[in-house]
């Protein structure tokens, strides 16, 4: 047992965690933030992706006690309380980038970390940015298109969610 302090989705909290708990277990079981998924438990699939201190990590490969002092963002932080979606989420919806949905939270967070750092990514940048996230429904093309669309929307003034259309598609 160890007591840790961390920030999750903007809220500071003190938690008591087991020595063998992973960050993923704490998010899902202790905090019931079940938008973070476990697909493989060994860093291959990216379904458990969260943003830790600004960088994406596999929460199955971070022990809970290692998150002491860190700031964590999960998918639950993205949409607003009034129900409006983040432009990336909106673009995933509109472009049909969602199928079974199990990869979606991780995919969206990888896209967010990418766009936060690089607001004008090339197709190759996007492919690289989501290369740690597997989609077994094989919807990669639409996912890449959604990230492109989200980048455009966010460039054109962020909050006007999902109205921009790419002329060439």
């Amino acid at each position: 047992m160890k007591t840790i302090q961390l920030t999750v989705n903007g809220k500071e909290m003190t938690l008591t965690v087991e020595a063998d708990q992973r960050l993923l277990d704490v998010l899902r079981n202790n905090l019931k933030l079940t938008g973070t998924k476990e697909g493989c438990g060994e860093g291959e699939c990216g379904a458990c992706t969260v943003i830790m201190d600004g960088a994406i990590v596999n929460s199955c490969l971070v022990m809970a006690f290692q998150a002491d002092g860190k700031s964590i963002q999960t998918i639950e932080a993205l949409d607003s309380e009034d129900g409006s979606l983040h432009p990336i989420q909106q673009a995933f919806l509109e472009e049909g980038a969602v199928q079974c949905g199990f990869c979606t939270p991780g995919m969206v967070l990888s896209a967010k970390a990418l766009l936060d750092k690089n607001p004008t990514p090339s197709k190759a940048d996007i492919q690289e940015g989501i290369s740690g996230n597997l989609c077994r429904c094989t919807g990669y093309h639409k996912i890449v298109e959604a990230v492109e669309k989200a980048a455009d929307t966010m460039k054109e003034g962020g909050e006007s969610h999902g109205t921009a259309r790419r002329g060439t598609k």
Partner: protein
Amino acid sequence: MVQKVYQVHEIQQALELLHQHTHQAKLLAGGTDLIIKMREGHVNPAVLIDISSMDKTRIIEVQGQEIHIGSTATFSEIQEHPLFQKDLGAIAAAARSVGSPQIRNRATIGGNICNASPAADLLPPLLAMEAMTVLRSKETSRLLPLSDFLVGKEKTALKSEEMLERVWFRKLEDRSGLGFSKLGIRNALAIARLSMAVYLKLDATGRCLEARVASGALGLTAQRENEVEAFLQQQVIDETIIDQAAQVLEKTTAQRLAGRSTLPFKRQAVQGVFRDALSQALKTSLRREQS
């Protein structure tokens, strides 16, 4: 089962804990290998010492003629560092070839070296640069060439009270260059089937003064390839010499992997990977001559 966990911020704390718990303790950095091994039950430390938040060993910097990389520097930090964007781009390429963005944000150079996987991606370029390891314990500090540090498959010369503090290697001189090439089964998250790094130093006439060739996944540990190195010595590196050098390497491979199922694949693949790494090294050497 893990009984006690510590998160340390200073190297002295880590060394003190290692001194107390010795072989019962395991250092945990990026965790991208260790956490999997623990969950599979292959490693069962009683004490875990998390060093991933230890910022002072996270340096990447020039000290005189040397480049130092602290053991908790992540692959992402190495990949993006300005020092490795041009002539030493092979170091960034090796870092970039590892895992995925998520893995690279956590995995450290120290973990890559100390796990000593035969397929560890940073080892060939570091071996080709004749990197030195700086090993610390509570009371001692020692310097060991990386090639001596790696003693076998997942085996190193690290003692149970020691930790790897950093590695360093000399900057590229004029008319020298480094190349890296890797063959994996897919672009992301591929463990190297084969990787190779080549360092070259040419004289003013373009003759090879020194060649250092290091391979990954071509034996029990990443290693220097002495036969092909000797062959390249004093040669003017043209197509014919490259062909012949590739054949030397193929012969080495055939001898080393005799009887292994991977041999038919690797004896072919090694030549392509070697040519790729060598031509990059050659290009950099020639560029550094002109400038």
